[in-house]
């Protein structure tokens, strides 16, 4: 219970820090980096829900991110819908697309699913790239408006946009937190651990996988829509595998299947990659090996490693207790071979 309280405290401190950030740091660059990081985090949470908790690695999420972004662009610029209508519709449309793709893609498993979705992502990229009349093709898509006003709230300034994105990030985190710690979340984890067993336990794995996939696509499209309204220019590159790899990197370095992972990983990697800018042309010469080393030495990610460290300490404590007890038992049994008790704490 104390641990739980402590965690709450930490969360509160972090949230307060995030809220106060624009007041503490007036450097527009940091604000910009923070905002864009938050957007990535939302997308990575989407990925985390499906890859981390349900156990299926989707490599199409950069594609869904782009679909979310482009749909917002098209609906605002070409169709002329009011911003928030377009925002809602773009998430809805992308989720629907996710549903359709999920229905087919989820028939495959493991690596097949990963590469299947890699191909889906690539097809999305190619369509965006080639369908000039709709997406602007390689030329890119311009003229996306900033988020529209909601009553007295206006989102024209960077600080306002920061808070807007932060709001969505916190909402996504909240939803994730609720979800993971629920019967539904446990069901996803069960599917991750063994689909066959889940099936014989009467769980409709397809339905659950689909729900998880669509929700995860929804998060990612939300991030995409926010990206479009923040950067306000779109190119096909945001659907490309490199962006997908970035998402994966954030997730894995942070800790896949953990709640804190996306935040930790995204912050760390964007920070690192910005810090290495001074190396210019050769920053990948350092970044590449650092990434590989992180994976080798922190296989569970930063957050995952921390959780494991705590779990291990608890387990060691238990083992010690058990060893003591066994010793005592042995002594007892030597004396009189009384009834055997196998009891655990």
């Amino acid at each position: 219970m104390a641990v739980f309280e402590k965690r709450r405290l930490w969360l509160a401190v972090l949230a307060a820090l995030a809220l106060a950030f624009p007041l503490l740091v007036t450097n527009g660059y940091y604000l910009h980096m923070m905002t864009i990081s938050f957007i990535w985090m939302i997308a990575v949470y989407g990925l985390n829900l499906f890859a981390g908790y349900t156990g299926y690695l989707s490599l199409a999420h950069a594609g869904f991110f782009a679909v979310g972004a482009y749909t917002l662009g098209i609906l605002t610029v070409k169709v002329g819908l009011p911003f928030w209508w377009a925002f809602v519709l773009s998430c809805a449309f992308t989720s629907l697309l996710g549903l359709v793709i999920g229905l087919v893609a989820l028939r495959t498993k493991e690596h097949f699913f990963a590469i299947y979705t890699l191909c889906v992502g690539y097809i999305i990229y190619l369509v965006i790239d080639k369908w000039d009349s709709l997406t602007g093709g390689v030329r890119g898509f311009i003229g996306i408006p900033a988020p529209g006003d909601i009553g007295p709230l206006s989102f024209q300034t960077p600080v306002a946009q920061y808070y807007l994105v932060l709001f969505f990030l916190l909402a996504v985190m909240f939803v994730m937190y609720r979800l993971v710690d629920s019967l539904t979340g446990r069901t996803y984890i069960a599917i991750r651990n063994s689909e066959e067993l889940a099936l014989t336990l009467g769980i409709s794995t397809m339905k659950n996988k689909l729900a998880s996939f669509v929700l995860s696509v929804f998060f990612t499209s939300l991030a995409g829509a926010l990206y479009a309204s923040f950067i306000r220019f779109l190119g096909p590159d945001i659907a490309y595998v490199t962006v997908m790899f970035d998402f994966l990197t954030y997730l894995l370095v942070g800790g896949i299947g953990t709640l804190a992972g996306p935040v930790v990983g995204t912050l760390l990697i964007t920070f690192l990659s910005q810090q290495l800018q001074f190396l210019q042309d050769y920053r990948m010469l350092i970044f590449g090996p650092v990434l590989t080393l992180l994976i080798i030495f922190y296989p569970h990610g930063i957050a995952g490693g921390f959780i494991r460290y705590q779990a291990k300490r608890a387990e060691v404590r238990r083992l010690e207790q058990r060893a003591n007890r066994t010793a005592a038992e042995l002594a007892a049994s030597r004396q009189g071979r009384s009834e055997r008790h196998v009891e655990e704490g």
Partner: protein
Amino acid sequence: MFLHVERLTKRFGGLLAVNDVTFSVEQGKVNAIIGPNGAGKSTFFNLISGLHRPTSGTITFKGCDITRLPANERAKLGIARTFQTTHLFEQSTVMDNVIIGHRLRTTSNVFDAILRTKRHRREEQACKEKAMEVLDFVGLTDVADRLVANLSQEQKKRVAFALALATDPELVLLDEPAAGVNPDETEGLEELIVKMVKGGLTVCLIEHKMSMIMKIADRIMVLNYGEKIAEGTPEEVQNNEAVIQAYLGGSTVA
């Protein structure tokens, strides 16, 4: 009739793993299935639980034809099983494993989870209570918060039982529950099975440990090369020439 299979056949390529088997499971009894390795016992279970589709034949459960039903639907109807190689959510705690076992009796969805609706809270509570109940039943209350991966073989078998029981089944299929468990602990498992049947469940049991079969089985079916070669009470089967030839050998039951 409780569970009845009629002329059930399963073919893998050229191999008839289960061949034209007709068999009824009696309610409230321990129905054992024995037979040499590769006789098709596990395949038989896979057919009943829905992991494999039969090549031909029908399966009826409580009067409904379930031959084409997917595995999860059969579980909802009340058929639960354990696997030959213990199959559990290794990286979760015992409690988490068992809670999932009751999930099929709940209906809350993503939105309930996010909004923490009344239904969700009620069902979560129900799952936990069910989990505690079955853990108590199998005698694992004290390891509820351990990771399954850290348990002993026998404890894992019990978790598998608990998991099956948590689905509120009427029929439990147990595939070699005592494999790799020492004699002392095997007795414990025997008691557990008897207790399950006393509690009103029907058990279908595959086992090679004849002492166990003879002690607790009410009826036995013997498979060989996918075919049913004998059926009857333990005494009948034990003295059946064909069964001795194919399976038991000359040894007195150990």
